[in-house]
């Protein structure tokens, strides 16, 4: 299908909206009526047609506006994109992976022509047509990581693998759930995950690291993570928290359905061929409570998950103060009926709300 790109904002007047198409394909992160951290990773080998899992790098109606938002963030704070000197090769690996994947998966939107090291990249939605020499930084307006991720939705971390660990040595991070690349760059897997509650004690990070270090080229993996965001604000950075934090207190019973968003990260893992680094794209999807409630199964389930979530997780995710108001709202959409297993909407088989 051809994508109709939205003209919308993720700040100030927040004109971001999801179409019906985008709501139905929203990666709802709960496969059952409760949630706890787990080693929830699987192979990234496509998914149902039209779902966000289908392509290697999903492009949706928010593409152009998200790239505009990223450019604003980078203008204000260039430290959101950094690469330690030894990571340039991994940047080229990532550029190649994205260009090849997108031109194959979306031939009507992206084209790549390669003649030896002479490459021509055509990005129709963003109006880009550049010719450059692969592996020669002087022929691109930015370093390879910054160049390609200014044209790709989602954040990107590049991990160097050495000393039996992964090191976050490069990244483009502008749509993060409240963590700082500038602070975390150079850390290993256990260090940057240090603030996460419970998961260390559960042994999850030991298993996760093992899984990631074994990712082979051509066999990528994926997992979902989620949190809550008031207003469709992509840049929930610690850097700007003193500016956006106050928005968390703007919820009322009247506006919560429109303002409160579930924020889902589709995280994928790719082994890169030349650098042996790991690419970790973190793609952020936002959906308002009221849009989620159009799917009866999701309404029932979200209420139960938020209600029963351990205090530690609700605190870490930053919505403990707003949880009572969320539950008042969500309980209207929970009639107590059982829900089908799995994340998909199941609109044809799940009953409408009985309330």
């Amino acid at each position, binding site marked *: 299908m051809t994508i109709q790109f939205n003209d919308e904002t993720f700040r100030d007047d927040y004109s971001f909206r999801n179409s019906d198409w985008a709501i139905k394909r929203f990666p709802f992160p709960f496969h059952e009526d409760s949630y706890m951290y787990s080693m929830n990773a699987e192979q990234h080998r496509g998914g149902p047609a039209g779902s966000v899992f289908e392509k290697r790098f999903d492009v949706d109606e928010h593409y152009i506006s998200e790239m505009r938002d990223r450019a604003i963030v980078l203008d204000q704070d260039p430290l959101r994109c950094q690469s330690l000197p030894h990571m340039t090769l991994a940047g080229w690996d990532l550029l190649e992976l994205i260009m090849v994947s997108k031109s194959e998966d979306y031939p009507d939107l992206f084209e790549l022509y390669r003649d030896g090291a002479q490459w021509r990249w055509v990005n129709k939605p963003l109006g880009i047509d550049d010719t450059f020499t692969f592996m020669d930084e002087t022929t691109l307006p930015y370093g390879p990581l910054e160049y390609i991720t200014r044209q790709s939705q989602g954040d990107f971390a590049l991990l160097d693998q050495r000393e039996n660990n992964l090191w976050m040595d490069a990244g483009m991070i502008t749509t993060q759930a409240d963590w700082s690349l500038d*602070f975390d760059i150079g850390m290993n897997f256990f*260090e*940057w995950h*240090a603030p996460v509650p419970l998961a260390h004690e559960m042994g999850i990070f030991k298993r996760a690291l093992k899984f990631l270090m074994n990712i082979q080229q051509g066999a990528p993996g994926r997992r979902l993570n989620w949190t809550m965001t008031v207003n469709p604000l992509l840049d929930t950075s610690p*850097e700007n*928290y003193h500016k956006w*934090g106050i928005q968390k*207190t703007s919820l009322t019973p009247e506006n919560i359905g429109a303002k409160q968003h579930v924020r889902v990260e589709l995280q994928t893992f790719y082994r890169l061929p030349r650098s042996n680094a790991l690419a970790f794209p973190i793609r952020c999807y936002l959906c308002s409570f009221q849009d989620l409630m159009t799917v009866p199964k999701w309404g029932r389930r979200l209420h139960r998950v938020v209600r029963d979530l351990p205090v530690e997780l609700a605190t870490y995710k930053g919505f403990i103060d707003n949880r009572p108001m969320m539950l008042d709202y969500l309980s209207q959409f929970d009639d107590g009926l059982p829900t089908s297993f799995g994340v998909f909407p199941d609109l044809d088989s799940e009953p409408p709300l009985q309330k």
Partner: protein
Amino acid sequence: MTKFNFPPSITSRPVWGELQARAGSGHVFIADAHGAGAIMDMATPDLMAKAHIIYIPKGHDMSAELKALGPAQYYEGPSYAAASSRIAHVLGQAKMGVQVYLAGTESVMGQAMHAAVQAGIPSGSIQTEHRGSTARRMQCVHCKGFTEDVETDPFVCSHCGLNLFVRDHYSRRLAAYQAVCIDAEDPGNVPESKGIYE
């Protein structure tokens, strides 16, 4: 001075050890204030014959005692910042097999540790021992400015003036803990400051 036992913490936070004399091609000591005591507790004439001590008295001057140990080379600086280019130079010139000993506040150990790693010294050749103040070197996540010697939580950023709370999240590259605005969700509501470990 009694040793301070740091409470168990998160995995980004370094764990400090206890200095022990080791065989090495040379011995670089970097310490501030009470850190001198850790050196005195383990110094031997053998070690001192190949030792370079870099000391920052910081209000607790033990330079006479350190000099009395008879190190091959002795330098005293008024602050870490003032000593930092010398430290980078000394560590950069160090021969294979050098042993590095860091003692004193977390701020000095953290910064010197980073300098040593940057200079290519293997982490197995770097030892640490905390002595003296438990104050922290903090980085404001908003303006990126560093505030040294932070003893209370919350505190005021010495650069941008925001009221910040003290996190345990630690960056070895910055040799600093992270500080985040405490009243972002309720401007002006700043709880009374307490000692970090109170």
